[in-house]
């Protein structure tokens, strides 16, 4: 081949080479374009989450009960860490975590690992002082409950990703959480995130969660917490509940749950330190047989239906009564009592005689009207409707058992709401815990008004029952419930618990309770106290009634309610 031919050959080969490259380029740009563009986008882009700030929970006077704060989380890039074992040992001393767990994280094949999330400022500073370039820090929001144990089971708590897991944190999670934002960032060849900026910058700013204002008053909650805990500790009980409610509106001013004696009160700042059974709010999730405090429902129904008069005499001298195949006794022998004294002295025989007069149809109707057998609708998750047998399934003895508070399971919140009916003139109010939801601009997002469920009895009947319940405190079983300077009405209860081994009523385990309202002349508060399985003196009048008195005295003084004894012209002074 001559020189010209060789040049021509080289030109042709170069041309072919270019043609091949051009062809491949055309193939990639035209045929494979969609797939490759999508793959490039996946490889080059990263959606960075912008966490929204969780709203604050306040008490009724805007005192903070649950607040979020940015704290630092420590992370590592395993591929960058030269000596994972040494690093794990250094970190474990500061973060107080198992060095082997840390080493496992640091040698993981992941690109990014959390070493420890949401650490305190002191520990974060100590990790920084190590001066290692292999670990980094990122701010994350952490939930704090500054009042510690106060209203712990009401507030609940959040998880690691700030999602509500228990209590109001859970039931109002949507409101509190807000909406997370995002930024579409790019990744460089090293996998680092680059925020492009400029006109094509795509992002959505996070929307902070709303604030929630409760009906709870932190001072009344503290009074209830303290007095209940004292009683539970003194009685070596398995727990207790104290509810303080405004009977006119259904607002809950305090909902205190005590853990078993010897166990610390539930602190939502460290839920993992407690048993899961201690997270729940027993005021709404647990049933108990109410015992004598339920006699009030029978009394209200019988007076409303006019089957008995408060001063009518009822013969209780036998000390026992046989209904169907069961004999029911009084705790102590009584003579002939007025119906008022039947309630004041808590006579089972007298109560059952009146119940039999009323009949199961009418009695069942009033039980339902007082809200038993249905959820109250209170804001806390996990509420149960209680245990109430359908009237058609009642046995021959059921009417007698239920009249004295057996064969029925109620929740403390149902019982408090039922006494609210007697205190406010006959209206069943829905108990509630959240009064307002406020958005971050300061506007009121939602305002919750009191919700009447329905009229149960007339004002006249309420007044009659109230006088009977005042008698319980003046001369009956509830003398220790009497608050100084204030009139009060209420009822004691001492109910046998079911022995789970035998299925029979236990002779050792009781639930002691007291429910009532103060001042009796113009009720401002309904207070329920329930103490589970006290030891020693098990009577409601001795275990629960003093808690009622202490909570009533201190709460009324705090609310500046004038003492009403002596025709409303009394004044309490310090000697």
């Amino acid at each position, binding site marked *: 081949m001559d020189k010209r031919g060789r040049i021509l050959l080289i030109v042709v080969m170069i041309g072919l080479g270019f043609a091949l490259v051009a062809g491949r380029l055309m193939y990639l740009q035209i045929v494979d374009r969609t797939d490759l563009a999508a793959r490039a986008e996946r490889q080059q882009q990263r959606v960075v989450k912008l966490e929204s700030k969780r709203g604050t929970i306040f008490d009724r006077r805007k005192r903070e009960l649950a607040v979020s704060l940015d704290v630092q989380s420590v992370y590592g890039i395993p591929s960058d860490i030269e000596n994972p074992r040494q690093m794990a040992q250094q970190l474990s001393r500061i973060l107080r975590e198992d060095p082997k767990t840390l080493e496992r994280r640091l040698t993981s094949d992941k690109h990014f690992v959390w070493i420890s999330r949401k650490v305190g400022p002191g520990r974060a500073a100590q990790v920084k002082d190590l001066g290692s370039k292999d670990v980094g820090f990122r*701010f994350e929001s952490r939930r704090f409950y500054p009042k510690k144990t106060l209203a712990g089971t009401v507030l609940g708590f959040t998880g690691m990703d700030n999602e509500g897991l228990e209590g109001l944190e859970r039931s109002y999670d949507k409101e509190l959480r807000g909406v997370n934002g995002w930024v579409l960032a790019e990744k460089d060849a090293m996998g680092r995130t680059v925020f492009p900026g400029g006109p094509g910058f795509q992002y959505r700013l996070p929307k902070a969660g709303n604030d929630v204002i409760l009906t709870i008053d932190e*001072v009344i909650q503290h009074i209830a917490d303290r007095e209940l805990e004292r009683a539970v500790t003194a009685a070596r009980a398995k727990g207790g509940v104290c509810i303080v409610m405004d009977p006119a509106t259904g607002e809950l001013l305090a909902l205190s749950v005590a853990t078993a004696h010897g166990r610390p009160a539930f602190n939502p700042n460290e839920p993992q330190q407690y048993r899961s059974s201690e997270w729940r709010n027993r005021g709404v999730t647990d049933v108990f047989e109410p015992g004598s405090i339920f006699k009030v429902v029978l009394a209200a129904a019988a007076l409303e239906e006019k089957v008995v008069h408060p001063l009518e005499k009822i013969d209780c001298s036998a000390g026992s009564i046989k209904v169907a195949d069961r004999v029911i006794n009084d705790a102590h022998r009584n003579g002939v009592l007025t119906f008022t004294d039947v309630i004041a002295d808590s006579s089972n025989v007298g109560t059952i005689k009146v119940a039999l007069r009323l009949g199961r149809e009418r009695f069942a109707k009033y039980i339902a009207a007082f809200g038993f057998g249905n959820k109250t609708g209170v804001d806390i998750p996990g509420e149960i409707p209680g245990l109430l047998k359908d009237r058609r399934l009642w046995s021959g003895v059921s009417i007698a058992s239920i009249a004295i508070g057996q064969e029925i399971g109620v929740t403390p919140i149902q019982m408090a709401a039922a006494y609210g009916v007697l205190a406010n003139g006959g209206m069943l109010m829905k108990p509630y815990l959240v009064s307002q939801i406020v958005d971050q601009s300061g506007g009121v997002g939602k305002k919750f008004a009191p919700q009447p469920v329905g009229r149960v009895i007339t004002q006249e009947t309420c007044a009659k029952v109230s006088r009977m319940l005042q008698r319980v405190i003046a001369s009956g079983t509830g003398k220790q419930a009497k608050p100084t300077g204030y009139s009060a009405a209420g009822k004691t209860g001492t109910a046998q618990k079911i022995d789970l081994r035998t299925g029979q009523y236990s002779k050792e385990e009781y639930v002691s309770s007291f429910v009532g309202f103060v001042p009796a002349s113009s009720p401002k508060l309904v207070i329920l106290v329930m103490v589970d399985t006290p030891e020693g003196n098990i009577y409601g009048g001795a275990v629960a009634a003093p808690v009622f008195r202490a909570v009533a005295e201190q709460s009324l003084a705090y609310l500046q309610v004038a003492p009403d004894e002596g025709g409303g012209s009394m004044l309490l002074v310090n000697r």
Partner: protein
Amino acid sequence: MQTRTGDIGSFVFERGKRGSLRRVMAVLMIVAALLLYVGGKVRIVQLGYQIEALEKEKGDLERENRALRIEAASLSSPARIEELALKRLGMVRVAKENLIVVKRQQRAK
């Protein structure tokens, strides 16, 4: 070959002097414009850094403010105040026997 170096040289020199001046002026103007442009850019970058630093400081202060608010809320809890009042200040709860109930005087009508 006849030459007119002097005249031409003088002419060339005149032309060259004026042209050089123009070039120098043009270069100076370009340099000045570039300096202005670069200076502006540098200033923008510096201000950007300052904004970033101030934003960070603002964020830190806001975080500190929130932390202090939480601490204040924690310190003002009723349980802590009660403990301080009883244990450190020696205050006592009014005992029932120290309370008397007196009748408030009715106002004369």
